[in-house]
């Protein structure tokens, strides 16, 4: 298991807050940090990993943890 540096809970939030918040958070973090993001908005489940990759970060995992709930773990580069 990796050590989670910081966690972001965007459950209940709609388009585009999960995307914008996770992007802002990732920008503030240090290289090597690990960010964990919780969301329940389907569109963001596909787009946050893409955004993170295009920022150059590494998506360690993106899994569905329940009914319309996802957990995404990202390693900041």
């Amino acid at each position: 298991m990796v050590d989670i540096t910081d966690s972001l809970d965007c459950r209940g939030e709609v388009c585009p807050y999960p995307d914008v918040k996770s992007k802002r958070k990732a920008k503030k973090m240090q290289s090597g940090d690990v960010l964990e993001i919780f969301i329940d908005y389907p569109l963001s489940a596909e787009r946050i990993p893409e955004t993170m990759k295009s920022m150059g970060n590494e998506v360690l995992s993106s899994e569905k943890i329940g009914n319309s709930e996802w957990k995404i773990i990202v390693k900041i580069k």
Partner: protein
Amino acid sequence: MAIDIVLVLIPGFIIGIIFGIILQRGRFCMNSAFRDIIVMKQYKLIKSVILAICVSMVGFSLMSFSGIISLNPKPFMWGAQIVGGFIFGIGMVLAAGCASGTTYRVGEGMMGSFVALLGYASAAYFTKFGFLNSISSFLQSNTKITNADGSNLTLFGVLTPIFMLILGIIGIGLASYFWIFKELKAKKTENKPMLEFKDFGIKIFKRGWHWAPTGIAIGILAWFAYISSAGAGRNYPLGITGGWVGWVKFWSTGVDSALSWETFLVLGVVVGAFIVAIIAKEFKLRTPKEAKKLLIQYVGGFAMGFGAVTASGCNIGNILSGWPHLSLGSLLAGAFIVLGCWVMAYLLFMRKRE
């Protein structure tokens, strides 16, 4: 007057269900599409929108040449379309969804979208029949310009149907060449199979759809929507606003004639999105944590309702259905919807916070 079940209720409802399924699976939302060009620099949804418009355009043109439909572009009323479009664009960012996006998300169990829809439907009704009507009628009647024979202005006049065919084919060609082939090529160089039919069912029902099939499916659905809707006496393809206005009118007056093809269409969208959201395990009743956000979504919905009726169409009526007609009014309204969306998105998400 009784409702015509065979021509109005069933066709509208079925087209609506299919529309809802595609919207939910493709996460097709024009608010996200336009907003993310500037906010997230993501272009997948806008590609989907462009492809849907081009596919519609080719179909509408061919169907008009063969006499299956008679094209019905929206009127040009510059004042109403500038003001209404801009207010609609601002509203959809606050409501976190365009007219179709808000409608299908109600089927996903998003309470914020439900609240936005209440604002949207009521404001649209008040603008059509109530206290806001004087403002929209004033804008519409004072800035309306038509051709000399009273027909509505389109980009190329009598030649418009031919240009629709040409532009549509060029658009599909460019989209295929620059976007679709490039993606396939990238897959080939990574040694991944270009098309994989393994787990086809899972891909359709459990994961979000790729932008290209989503756009093509919506474009083709619009052809059938046009034929079916014209058969029900409403000569226009897909639309959302009129449907919700119809429901509010029905609930407040009880008059059967308020229920049209479009009212059953919007109901079908909610039902279709609900069904596939359940299958994909993406249905969940969820409410934003802060009550303030619900209020903002309501206000956004209200602005959308006023804007849509004033501009004589929401993002579906004016952009998805209106742009393929090359109606001057729809092009103008659509441009201001995009502009309103960008101004509000900039203010909310991009301005540096001190």
